[in-house]
């Protein structure tokens, strides 16, 4: 379907006309080499990188691409863990990072209107300076942008209490694959006019259009937060503890898990004195509007954790201590590279009652394939990140990694869970999607894709499986 021929000179000329600013059209080899990777080990190369500054420019680029049948890969910070922004068929990478203005913070309607290149942490800082709160806090909040967050429907630690990105997307401006600019949703709380397209574009991984603006719901910032660390001798006890906390009806805003391998990697960088000799820790956060209630909830949590077998529960003395713990938490994924050269990061999500079972399954798979698979994640909402550590240049090991990854996916589905809680399907999990959703559902999605993107230009090769199903999965 796509024109795979090299980029014709007139396309380049037209891009330069659309984007006259310096360094807005990049086609040097040195540039192409660095616009085709993300946080996985997948790599591809665009034929050109276009850096627009407005929705109109994006629309012009997409129209040009659609006419020329060139692939378009939207890109934000490139922190994806599923291969989403990796260009597979050459074409144009649209880098949205210069569209990075916060257009409005509406303190009456509790809404922020932002461009897609705004860094999550910058938005948080801006709204918090006004006593407001944007809850979605992916661990990559400093290196991921709102466009990428919406496209992946990013989660984070606070999702447990506050929900994921989709719960905060009230409206979007999107450039369709055929080049029209549409607005779906807006500042109104209730809205049932027509299909809910903003929900469709949220989590579409850039396969249905380019997001050029987002209207996001804000909350009032809860003034009190407490963080605690509970230490466990057994990781299964830790998992059991989570299930008990949640079934007791407590509402911490976050529960995170780190196992021993994770702790030792993080400790090397952050020097926090984590109990690396133990099998697991849980990090709890509780927040709220009243000091006494927050204290009371933390008290109850600690009590429950001790009953569930916690050897020790340490409440952070001050904000500095709790910030240090959360900063370390956010550094886990890259810190794992300290153990082995490569990692394959998974993102399974399961019902919370099944956490102990899933933890046991991952440990068994690690043993079966003689692999180190540290486990961490937003365990409170059932989202676990088993990361398979390896050297991907060792073909024998890589084969075991592939087999283990496959078994982890299958175990998640068997637990009534799903392949991905927040990182998206991208390239990494596309061969498994039918296992999870069934072929009829995948076919329904394919029809939506074809209807919106008749020429298949928008982020091709993602989400939908290649022929051959699971057996065609290769790393």
């Amino acid at each position, binding site marked *: 379907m796509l024109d795979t021929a090299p980029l014709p000179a007139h396309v380049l000329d037209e891009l330069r006309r659309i984007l006259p600013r*310096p360094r807005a059209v990049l086609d040097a080899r040195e540039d192409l*080499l660095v616009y*085709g990777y993300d946080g996985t080990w997948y790599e591809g190369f665009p034929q050109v990188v276009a850096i627009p500054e407005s929705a109109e420019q994006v629309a012009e680029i997409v129209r040009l691409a659609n006419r020329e049948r060139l692939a378009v890969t939207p890109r934000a910070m490139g922190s994806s863990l599923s291969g989403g922004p990796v260009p*597979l068929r050459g074409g144009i990478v649209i880098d949205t990072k210069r569209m990075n203005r916060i257009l409005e913070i509406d303190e009456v309607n509790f809404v922020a209107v932002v461009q897609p290149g705004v860094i999550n942490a910058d938005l948080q800082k801006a709204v918090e300076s006004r006593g407001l709160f944007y809850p979605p806090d992916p661990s990559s909040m400093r290196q991921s942008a709102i466009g990428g967050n919406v496209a992946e429907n990013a989660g984070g630690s606070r999702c447990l209490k506050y929900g994921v990105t989709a719960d905060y997307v009230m409206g979007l401006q999107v450039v369709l694959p055929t080049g029209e600019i549409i607005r779906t949703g807006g500042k109104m709380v209730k809205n049932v006019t027509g299909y809910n397209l903003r929900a469709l574009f949220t989590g579409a991984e850039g396969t249905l259009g380019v997001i050029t603006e987002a209207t996001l719901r804000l909350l009032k910032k809860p003034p009190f937060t407490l963080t605690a660390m509970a230490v466990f001798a057994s990781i299964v006890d830790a998992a059991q503890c989570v299930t008990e906390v949640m079934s007791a009806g407590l509402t911490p805003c976050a529960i995170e898990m780190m196992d021993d391998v994770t702790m030792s990697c993080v400790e*090397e960088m952050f020097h926090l004195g984590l109990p690396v000799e133990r099998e697991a820790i849980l990090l709890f956060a509780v927040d709220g509007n009243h000091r006494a209630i927050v204290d009371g909830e933390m008290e109850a949590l600690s009590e429950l954790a001790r009953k569930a077998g916690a050897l020790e529960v340490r409440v952070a003395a001050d904000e500095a201590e709790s910030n240090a713990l959360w900063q370390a938490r956010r550094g886990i994924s890259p810190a794992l*590279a300290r153990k082995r050269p490569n990692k394959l990061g998974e993102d399974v999500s399961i019902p919370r009652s099944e956490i102990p079972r899933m933890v046991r399954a991952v440990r068994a798979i690690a043993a079966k394939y003689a692999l180190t698979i540290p486990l961490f994640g937003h365990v409170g909402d059932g989202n676990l990140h088993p990361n398979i550590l390896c050297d991907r240049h060792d073909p024998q090991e890589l084969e075991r990694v592939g087999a283990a990854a496959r078994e982890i996916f299958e175990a998640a589905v068997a637990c009534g869970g799903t392949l991905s809680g927040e990182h998206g399907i991208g390239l990494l999990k596309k061969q498994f999607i039918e296992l999870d959703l069934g072929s009829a559902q995948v076919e329904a999605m394919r029809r939506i894709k074809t209807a919106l993107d008749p020429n298949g230009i928008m982020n091709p090769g993602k989400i939908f499986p290649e022929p051959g199903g699971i057996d065609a999965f290769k790393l």
Partner: protein
Amino acid sequence: MDEQADAFESHPEARYGGAGRMSDATVAAHEEAAATLADFAPAANGFTGRDIPPDDVFNRCVRCGLCLPTCPTYVETMVETSSPRGRIALIKSVAEGQLDLLSPGFMHQMSECLDCRACEAVCPSGVEYGKLLEPARTQVNRALEQERGPIKNFVRHLLLHVLFGNLAIMRLVSRVLWLVQRLGLQAFAQKSGLARLFGMEKMIDLAPRMSDTFFVARDQRWEATGAKKATVFLHGGCIMATAFAEIDFATVRVLQRAGCEVLAPAAQGCCGAITVHAGDMDAGRELAKRNIEAFEQSGADYYIINAAGCGSTLKEYGHLFHEDPQWHARAVRFAAKVRDITEFLDEIGIDENLGRIEATVTYQEPCHLVHAQRITQAPRNLLRKIPGLTLVEMDESSLCCGSAGIYNLTQPEMSQRLMERKAKNAAATGASCCATANPGCQLQVQAGLRREGSEMSVRHIIELLDESYRVGDASRGTPATP
């Protein structure tokens, strides 16, 4: 070929563009291949000989992107190629034979990088970026040596080997510069074409104003005031000793009051920072050997340095000799004894008889202190000790000011953009003084503030401590320490 050399040293925006286009065949080849893992056909490593960027360092980068927002050149350009992750990928590409060592974009990136190490300090996976950049620059330089014009090579040699290689010559040149500055002869040098003849127009303009008295290490020994806690070797520095000699003298006084016997052995030389950062590790090693020997012979307990840029180079001598087992052990032993002055004073404690300085002060963090040496609290602790002084933090205090050794010569445009950014952030605090701990930063921030029309002064932390002692002594009627 002179043109190619130029691309490394000035900003080749104009040339950097079409030249390196991926060939049609490459694009076609990558299209489908990229769908699976990008495993390139092994090609020859573009780096050769000594000082090859180690693959276990660049392979550690998992491309998480956390370093991007900390990188000054990335935040200024918002282009991945000008980011740490991008530069690491380019170095990897050269190592894997995917990119030419002398391709314009690669040379530009190796030059545009400030070597500020902000990326290294935040990297959770522990990518030691400095260990990639310095060898990569050295490789480019070596390859360019034959291709640079003879005059340029000569000036480069003068600058890196003769000037920074020998403190006596450094002082001589500085004295001439002092004379030129005091007599107002800069304009003459520029107009007569004398400066241009040597390609030194920019250098003369950017040269710091020289001190009237230089600090010359002549085997002096200053006694500790009160009980002696340690004997320390003071590294006088080159720029510090000529353009900021007062800071060296102040350092001696503050150290004495902290209970240190201070030695200034004449055998010491330049630390090699300028040379190593400019991509000449061979010359750097020669300088390092001299300092290691001088320290070993001095018998001092610590090697003290009051310029953050020099400090980080001194602490990394071990790495400089990692291919030389005989010197490596000595270098590692030496490095373990190196202390930045702020770090050292915070560690051993200072004389607390400080006088009041009523001022609001903001702190500009030298990259080579905060990122390369990871020292953040010591300078602030010292400032907070001064009675009457209020410390206010500026935005982006740890973002490079654009000074970075000879960066303002090699990348004038980016250097200026970063200087303006820093000056705005500093001025926005409303402080009357900006404290720092490195001569390069001091010059750059001062220039930026002047351009911004700000009256704010820029002082080394040691100068503030020294002044505080003077005020205290005067108010108590004690004579100032000699």
